[in-house]
């Protein structure tokens, strides 16, 4: 774990690290099954001025069906918050309710309260387009637009009406996403030709080009190999000073490595109609959740007895 962090810094400074070296280190991480978190302890309490999201008894419905219930979370500025849990527990659904992406599904609706910097995100006066400019999203599968690398990154600023200074925005976004060195000589090439890991970093560059306050990442590494995954993780650590990050992940080691706080979701199956409803079981600092969880279900999950 520590080894990976160190090598990450080295990679960023030197830009190029031999593939074998990285592979061995990542492999070490993969075989290391015990999740011992070595990082500075995160205080449990969050001061009001640092509070970015406050979800109170949030539920998400698809039609009559309640997909997730009982989500109570307080998300702190400039922290990385991980949402973990078994498949179908609704963690992605919750993530998508944080920037109103669920609006794209006609039957989806929320109950409860979700405050973004004190403003109710589901107030009828809220413009979802403006919400998504402030709360960007990176998706599970890299989804570059069939346009040039430049046009991909410039897309967000352009639809926001920006015409000048796009070159600078593209360069700084690609630099933040640690992709600039690899693509600076072929910005006009199609983004479809990039590798999966590069495409995902391009998605991150595209998301930060509109200068959001929050980045929502929905299993951003699930389609990537360990090397590309390590790159994304070190990138998250680099940019968390500027952004508040929420990440959904299936990979508990990843949650333990990158996040400050973690929420564990589980599933309840209704025997009568075989419907599965997700719920937030435990939400606390990553250190506590992985070393000394309060809930038995959390403990079973992180020790591999369930899920």
């Amino acid at each position, binding site marked *: 774990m520590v080894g990976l962090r160190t090598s990450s810094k080295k990679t960023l400074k030197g830009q190029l690290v031999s593939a074998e070296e990285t592979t061995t280190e990542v492999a070490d991480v993969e075989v290391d099954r015990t999740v011992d978190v070595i990082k500075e302890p995160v205080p449990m309490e969050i001061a009001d001025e640092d509070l970015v999201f406050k979800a109170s008894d949030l539920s998400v419905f698809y039609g009559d069906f309640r997909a997730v219930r009982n989500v109570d979370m307080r998300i702190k500025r400039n922290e990385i918050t991980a949402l973990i849990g078994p498949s179908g527990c609704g963690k992605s659904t919750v993530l998508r309710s944080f920037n109103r992406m669920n609006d794209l599904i*006609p039957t989806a609706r929320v109950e409860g309260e979700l405050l973004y910097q004190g403003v109710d995100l589901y107030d009828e006066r809220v413009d979802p387009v403006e919400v998504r400019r402030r709360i960007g999203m990176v998706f599970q599968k890299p989804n570059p637009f069939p346009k040039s690398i430049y046009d991909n990154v410039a897309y967000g600023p352009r639809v926001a009406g920006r015409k000048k200074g796009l070159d600078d925005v593209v360069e700084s976004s690609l630099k933040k996403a640690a992709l600039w060195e690899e693509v600076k000589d072929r910005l006009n090439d*199609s983004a479809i030709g990039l590798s999966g890991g590069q495409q995902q970093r391009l998605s991150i560059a595209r998301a930060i080009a*509109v200068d959001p306050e929050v980045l929502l990442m929905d299993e951003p590494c699930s389609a990537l190999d360990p090397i590309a995954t390590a790159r994304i993780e070190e990138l998250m650590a680099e940019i968390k000073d500027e952004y508040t990050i929420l990440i959904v992940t299936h990979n508990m080691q990843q949650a333990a490595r990158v996040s400050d706080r973690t929420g564990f979701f589980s599933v309840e199956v209704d025997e009568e109609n075989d419907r599965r409803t997700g719920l937030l079981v435990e939400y606390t600092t990553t250190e506590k959740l992985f070393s000394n969880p309060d809930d038995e279900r959390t403990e079973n999950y992180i020790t591999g007895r369930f899920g």
Partner: protein
Amino acid sequence: MALTTVGGASNATRRVEDEIFRRGRDLKGTSFRSLMLSALGVSILILIVLIVDVFVDGWSVLSTRLPDFITGTLRSQSSSDALGISQGLLGSLWIAVFVTVLSFPIGVAAAIYLEEYAPRNLLTKTIDIAIRNLAGVPSVVYGLLGLFLFVQTNNGNSTLYAGGITLAILVLPIVVITSAEAIRAVPSSLRQGAYGVGATKWDVIRTQILPFAAPGILTGSLLSLSRAVGEAAPLILVGAITGRLAPRGGSFVSLDQLGDRFTAMPIVIVGWVQESGRDPGFAAAAGAAIVVLLALVVMMNSVAVTLRNYFENKRG
């Protein structure tokens, strides 16, 4: 293969050989394949016979006076040196203009509304099915519609715009269906990616959906154009007749023609085939006219394919 290895191969190898070597022929598969191949052969054969037949019929005209034939006009005698199809070509050109100006914008816009804006409910489902059925309605029925709407309301006068609008309505459902299919094929990851960086619905349609769907929309639209240019039945009903659509005011193409009586390539062909009983020379003229019409349709389809390839390359 088996014979050469008998000496050296172990029993185990021979057993595996027994299991994985080909046993007999896949009779069902082979016969199914032959059946498909012969079906394809029949289609191509019919097409070849058709093309050869019209070429042979029209050869005496095509080989001797093709340029004059294209610029010539309709005559009562097939022996006339001035016999030609210019009026038919002009009428078909006008029809193409009507389809392009009316069916394409309205059809594509309707498809965008249906796919992107309309809520999914019973009403829109019904509309969807209705449009699909409209695309299958026989073209004569559209001719009747045109007759009532544009000819009888105009004191029974047949006009070029009546024919043009009727054919535009005929292909409208086809344009809607093919455009809707193309829009539906746009990957949802593109929409989500665009919405995710704060694009509005209109941004997403303008910058993602239309560029991605453009090849499909173009192909469908241009194929429907070919269909309109080849239709005869509705035009007969709305009163396209042979021997009309003269150049007006000294210019070959003029907006005044819209209110004139008119003809079109399929009508010219039908007329000449009928005349060939009285004057056998018209058979050759009809054959030559068919070749020209075929060439026109092939040209339109080539444009469609070229444009589609261009836009597909562009979207990477």
